[in-house]
């Protein structure tokens, strides 16, 4: 099957070439670094909220954890941006790998759960902790599963690709 030409067009662009070939520590590895920072902020904060909703760390009051959603969104913003840049550097490598689509699907679902948590569990000011736990536990469980899956799929991208560049 012939691979679509636009992959080659992206790879030939000067930005994509610079990302891959520059010796500068501020090229590819810098973007990859911020992808890791974003991951730490987004999943670090989200997993805390998830664990709390699953009944761990009961001494932490639930409602003020609302503040951590902003950190998650900052992390997501960093990773959406750096993710697009990384994809620009190696479009063929990512888009010809089914694992990449699995990763995107899991991130999409995890973010959908994140918005549900924010809107349905952490929005009301009059809701009791018991209500929040009852509403959030199932979402929290799936959130954890999806984030572990997304991280694992992301890691696997380094080991499962078929092409590195357009053949």
């Amino acid at each position: 099957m012939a691979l679509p030409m636009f992959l080659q067009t992206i790879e030939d662009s000067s930005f994509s070439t610079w990302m891959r070939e520059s010796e500068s520590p501020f090229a590819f590895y810098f973007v990859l670094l911020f992808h890791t920072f974003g991951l730490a902020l987004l999943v670090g904060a989200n997993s805390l909220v998830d664990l709390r909703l699953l009944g761990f760390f009961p001494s932490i009051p639930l409602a003020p954890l609302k503040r951590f959603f902003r950190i998650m969104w900052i992390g997501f913003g960093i990773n959406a941006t750096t993710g697009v840049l990384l994809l620009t550097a190696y479009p063929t490598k990512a888009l010809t790998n089914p694992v990449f689509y699995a990763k995107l699907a899991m991130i999409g679902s995890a973010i959908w759960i994140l918005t549900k948590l924010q809107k349905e569990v952490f929005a009301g000011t009059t809701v009791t902790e018991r209500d929040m736990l009852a509403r959030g536990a199932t979402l929290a469980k799936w959130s954890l599963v999806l984030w572990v899956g997304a991280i694992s799929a992301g890691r696997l991208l380094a080991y499962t690709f078929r092409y590195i560049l357009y053949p």
Partner: protein
Amino acid sequence: MNLAHLHLLLNHFPIIGTIVGLGLFLISLFGKNDDLKRAGLIVLAVMALLSLPTFFSGIGAEGAIQQLPGVSEPLIDRHEGAAILALFFMEITGALALIGLWQSHKFSRPAPWNVVAVLLLSLITMGLMARVGTTGGDVRHPEIWGSSTPPADDGTLDSIVHTFEPSPAKFTRLMTANKFWWAFMMDVHFIGLVMIIGAVGALDLRMLGFAKQISIASLHRLVPWALAGFALNVTTGVLAFIGMPEFYTYDVAFWIKIVGILLLGLNAAAFYLTDTFNVVEHMGPGEDAPPAAKIIAASSLVLWFGVITLGRYIQPYQNTFSGR
């Protein structure tokens, strides 16, 4: 200074430190002195941390001397196998010591099972570390060989211990034989990273003034979660090092990362062993942490994100310096 020099500087700590830590712990049991018990546990935990760079510098030391006349490869291998086994026991002892410290914080003293486990494991570690020292001495000090030329594990106890010591070359092949095993280890390393940053980050941000409605003491309950992440990452990090020792040894980013982790140990000491922890632990929701706590929290954040940064740059900075 090269890695051989660093190895010689560090290698006394795990051996002597384990004896000191175990000694303090034993005296505390006879004297029923809980402060002394904590001191023993702290020494053991610090030794578990210091054993990491001691172990990591060994490959560089090997690279520096293996071409020299009179240096025998089998002797180095025997020393390295002994070191791997001793390191595993040292790290388990360190983890048990941290659990004991957490229990003394929560219930004013370690649980009985923890006391027994620390005693047993640190005793075994002490014996194994002594053997690491002796086999290491054998590499460069023929004057201690005695009547038989090593490697001769003819003493009954030595030969029994030796059967449990891995062959370094086989261990290395085992770690890299399957790329999905390697991918799994790296995956766990990232999950450990998330656990650490999630827990430590929340605590540090609160001390800096974020989400003040939550008391610092309640967020401090997250520390075991961070330590579990750290345990995952020490395990996967050491296994990865054993898998590709030369890749990490001559990498400047790797070594600065290790320094960063040691500085985080100092950061923890500045938090727990000064008055700072005591002060912030008794603060309620809404209260502002004192400047000392803020400095410690900020440096912890900077150091952790620095450690991630350096980890990310290990790959492009491989072979930044040579072994000799």
